[in-house]
């Protein structure tokens, strides 16, 4: 955390709406609510899923290569560009200008994109080919047919 007085570190502002609990909005003549002193916010999915609002983007997964990691065709991905990608993260990456979602593998200084489905090969950069991580997938949202 940024302590007060540490001016050399820029502080990111939160763009998420700041909700304040309404503590006893008005005075009642009858019984005061016994819950009055326990006022809190209802759980908010945005706050649970999104740590950095400015760096978070939604993506759509298309295909079945990540099935064993729980990402199915059509899932909505929450992607955070503020997270530093490391070995084992699920990432959105560009290969030759195309976007793909895969597991990042960085072993012995070599970068690979691993599929989570045995029928799909891993992506190993060829000579002169670059893989760039666009952002780290922090959740996958699945909607069921109702």
């Amino acid at each position, binding site marked *: 955390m940024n302590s007060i007085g540490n*001016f*050399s*570190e*820029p*502080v*990111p*502002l939160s*763009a998420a709406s700041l909700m304040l609990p309404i503590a006893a909005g008005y005075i009642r003549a009858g019984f005061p609510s016994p819950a009055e002193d326990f006022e809190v916010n209802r759980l908010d999915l945005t706050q649970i899923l999104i740590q*950095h609002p*400015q*760096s978070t*983007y*939604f*993506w*759509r*997964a*298309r*295909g*079945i*290569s*990540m099935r064993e990691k729980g*990402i199915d*065709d059509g899932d*909505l*991905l929450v992607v955070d*560009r*503020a997270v530093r990608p490391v070995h084992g993260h699920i990432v*959105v990456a*560009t290969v030759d*200008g*195309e*976007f*793909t*979602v*895969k597991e990042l593998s960085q072993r012995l200084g070599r970068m690979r994109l691993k599929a989570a489905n045995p029928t799909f090969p891993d992506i190993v950069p060829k000579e002169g080919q670059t893989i*760039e991580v*666009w952002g780290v997938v922090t959740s996958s949202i699945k909607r069921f047919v109702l």
Partner: protein
Amino acid sequence: MYALVDGNNFYVSCERVFRPSLNGRPVVVLSNNDGCAIARSNEAKDLGIKMAAPWFKIRHLEESAGLVALSANFVLYGDMSDRMMTLAAGLGPTQEIYSIDESFIGLHGVRGDLVARGRKVRERILQWTGIPTCIGMAPTKTLAKLANHIAKTTERKPGSYPKEFAQVFNLAALPAQDLDDVLQATEVGDVWGVGPRISAQLRDGGIRTVLDLTRMDPATARRGWSVTLEKTVRELQGQPCVDLDDAPGPKQQIACTRSFGKPVHQLAPLIEAVSEFAARAAEKLRKQKSLATEMLVFMHTSPYRPGPQCSRSVVVPLRRPTDDTLALTKAATDGMRFMYLAGYQFIKAGVILVDLQSANVHQRELELDDPNDAPATRDRTRLMTAMDVINTRFGKGTIHSGGTGKLGVNRVWTMKQERRTPAYTTCLADVPVARA
């Protein structure tokens, strides 16, 4: 101290975040109706494409130089701007958002190495949003803008200035002699607020570089030109004259104008168009809690097309200061009917609300209207609020006045945006796709 944080080729940079295949290629973003280039990648600048170059004049570069042209996607740029601005605000305690891609940051009370801090913020904006920026710092806004220009030029044209000035440049950290060298190497026309006309006059008077202008006597600037140029000279000398405007006041006039996708010659679609512009302007008016007393309605033909030319405008006085969509669309309709001439191919029309006043102030008046004529004077504030809430919640134009016509299919006058990319960050149906 002030900093100016500015996105490099901002619209193009926004597009490249979601289409990395555009990296390294010449790219331009076209204005509404795909008219002319309003943003250019460095590669496009190197092809000699000038700002505001008409699309039909540079179109051949698509074939010959691999130029990519995109229609402006302001929904995307607005969201990316919001992300960038929020992160830029981390640089100091106050912020003035100057345009969609520039903001001034007040650095008062910020201790430590400003350039190091600037580099951290720049790095964060780049990592979190994908937008490259340049940051200029100086004791006044005019100098901060100049420092930003130098930071940008150094990055784009290596050799123009010492290379450590690139990306983040603090003009105040420069020793006096080096500062003079930099000002000497920069043309007077690059100064904020010195337009082409004034810079030509200055050059005629022997003032060619920023250093020359800095050494001008402020009184001479005032006598020879204007108080604005005097302020510019003082700001260049390090004396702050332009404050940070971190809470801009309400606008003095509100305009909604648009070029049509193709020329329009009939009255009905012109009425439809200005009614819609009036409705948009009314929304903006209510948002800033103002009332309009007059409306200017105008239209003109295209000077670039063959055929008879016509440019008309009319000022419609409003019976009372109002923010009522129905009253304003009626005024626009009346104005259009009054000035319409058959036989011309109109390419642009618009409404401008002028002489705005606060909605909190009401002029009392004698009851001169016929009391039986109630609908005309009925207070429709609640109706207008309801309209705004519905349109915010369910999308623009969900409910609108009859005069604006049916949305979609039969509209002859809507914008041409043939090359627009999706609203990647603001519309669920448009989110980018990653192959799994």
